[in-house]
């Protein structure tokens, strides 16, 4: 049981516990905070997988932007009695059953794969991967097309979100 395994187990336990709290917290603000903890746990797991770049991008994008966005929308969509009622839909038992079934199926099929128990050893060098990723994202034989499409998607999302969230009443009164 070396250090990396201990770190992974701690991070995994914290992430799973926080995820359970996200889906079962009564007050939305607490759920958002538990989500932040989950995302940070996942960032630690990225570090154990030797992709420190993605760990930092996870904190920058998910915690620094998406979690703040979720907190903002929780604050903007409050109802007076909302935090005290029942936060679960009536059909939650069926949903739990579906979740357990999906888990069993996923793990079952993965266990049948012959590489399931391979040990992940340390990769030779970390910064080379970043360089190769950068080159692959802009090379015509690589991933330049998804890269450009991703930027178009972001622009579309930007314009779409701004258009949807603009207050219509303000425009009507003008």
């Amino acid at each position: 049981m070396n250090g990396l395994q201990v770190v992974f187990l701690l991070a995994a336990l914290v992430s799973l516990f926080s995820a359970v709290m996200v889906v079962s917290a009564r007050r939305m603000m607490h759920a958002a905070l538990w989500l932040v903890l989950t995302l940070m746990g996942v960032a630690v797991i990225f570090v154990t997988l030797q992709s420190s770049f993605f760990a930092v991008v996870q904190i920058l994008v998910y915690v620094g932007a998406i979690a703040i966005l979720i907190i903002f929308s929780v604050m903007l969509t409050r109802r007076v009695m909302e935090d005290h009622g029942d936060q679960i839909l009536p059909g939650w038992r069926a949903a739990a059953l579906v979740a357990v079934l999906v888990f069993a199926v996923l793990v079952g099929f993965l266990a049948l794969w012959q590489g399931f128990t391979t040990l992940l050893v340390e990769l030779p060098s970390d910064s080379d991967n970043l360089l190769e990723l950068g080159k692959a994202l802009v090379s015509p034989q690589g991933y330049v097309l998804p890269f450009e499409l991703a930027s178009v998607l972001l622009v579309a999302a930007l314009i779409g979100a701004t258009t949807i969230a603009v207050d219509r009443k303000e425009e009507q009164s003008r």
Partner: protein
Amino acid sequence: MIPIAWYLIFSAALFCIGLFGALARKNAVAILMGIELMLNAVNVNLIAFWHYYAQIHSRPYVHGLAFTTMVFVVAAAEVAVGLALVISAYRRRQTPVVDELTLLKG
């Protein structure tokens, strides 16, 4: 020195918790949080498999990393638009609870 099985089981568990959250919660923002959990689980899975294939091939192998980048971008875009929709629906109907947004019903 960690068996890849641990990562795969962890990501399956996170995915199923997110699935439960997306299926069984009343508040629209809580459903989006469940979706975010699912996307994170997918990312963990992708990077675990990237590590597996990178240690099999000797030269740097970045297909998993490129896929993960795309998932990050798509998740960010989807959360932005989804939350804009939720806020806009809240302004019309004054409720973020999804089973009260029934204007199109039968």
